[in-house]
């Protein structure tokens, strides 16, 4: 019983770490763009700091969460977030056609990561009960 409770607490913490990793990745992408090929000091430092924060948060999250599912969520947050906030922050407005193809790419990579999930494949073949 206590075991189940602590597993759930671990799981909750892992998902918070994963969402944080996604948010850090957005800031990383925006910082890399803002650094203008690492010629702007403040954005360059921010890029390095958030690269390390992302790596750390992701490694914490993936200790508990299945790698395929974790990467799918993380990549999705990073890609959608950098497109949305990038267009606001740097006034880079996408055309309708570009937004469409971008959505296809992001859906494709999420789908690809989910298809690589050992947990989901095991669930489907009925090998695990969870």
């Amino acid at each position: 019983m206590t075991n189940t409770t602590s597993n759930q607490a671990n799981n909750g913490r892992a998902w918070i770490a994963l969402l944080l990793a996604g948010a850090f990745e957005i800031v990383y992408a925006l910082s890399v763009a803002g650094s203008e090929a690492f010629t702007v000091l403040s954005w360059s430092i921010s890029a390095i700091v958030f690269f390390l924060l992302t790596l750390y948060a992701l490694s914490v999250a993936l200790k508990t969460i299945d790698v395929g599912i974790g990467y799918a969520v993380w990549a999705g947050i990073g890609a959608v977030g950098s497109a949305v906030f990038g267009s606001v922050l740097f006034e880079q407005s996408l055309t309708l056609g570009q937004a469409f193809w971008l959505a296809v790419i992001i859906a494709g990579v999420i789908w690809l990561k989910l298809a690589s999930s050992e947990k989901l494949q095991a669930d489907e073949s009925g090998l695990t009960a969870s």
Partner: protein
Amino acid sequence: MISWLYLGVAVLFEIAVAFSAGNAQGFTRLWWTIATLVSGAIATFFLSLALLEFDVGVGYSIWTSVAGVGIVILGAVFFQERLNLRKLSGIAMVIGGVIGLRLSGAA
């Protein structure tokens, strides 16, 4: 056109990041951790060159997604991971999307 080349180099090193981070086992193995950081720095630098031209959302998404495709393909070629219909359809979506973006004039 040169920005697509930068993005390509950034993709190769991002694949190296994923491979090294996977082997670093929670960053407890020193050399794999160093490999992760070095490839991450190179990937980031080439991404920043590409983003001089690309919109950040477009450049970033192509970068991370094509690296994802590369990881799956390398896994199939070198580590005998199965390529099923789902993975192939995800790969097709990413490649189709990149071609669509190229044709719709994203850098």
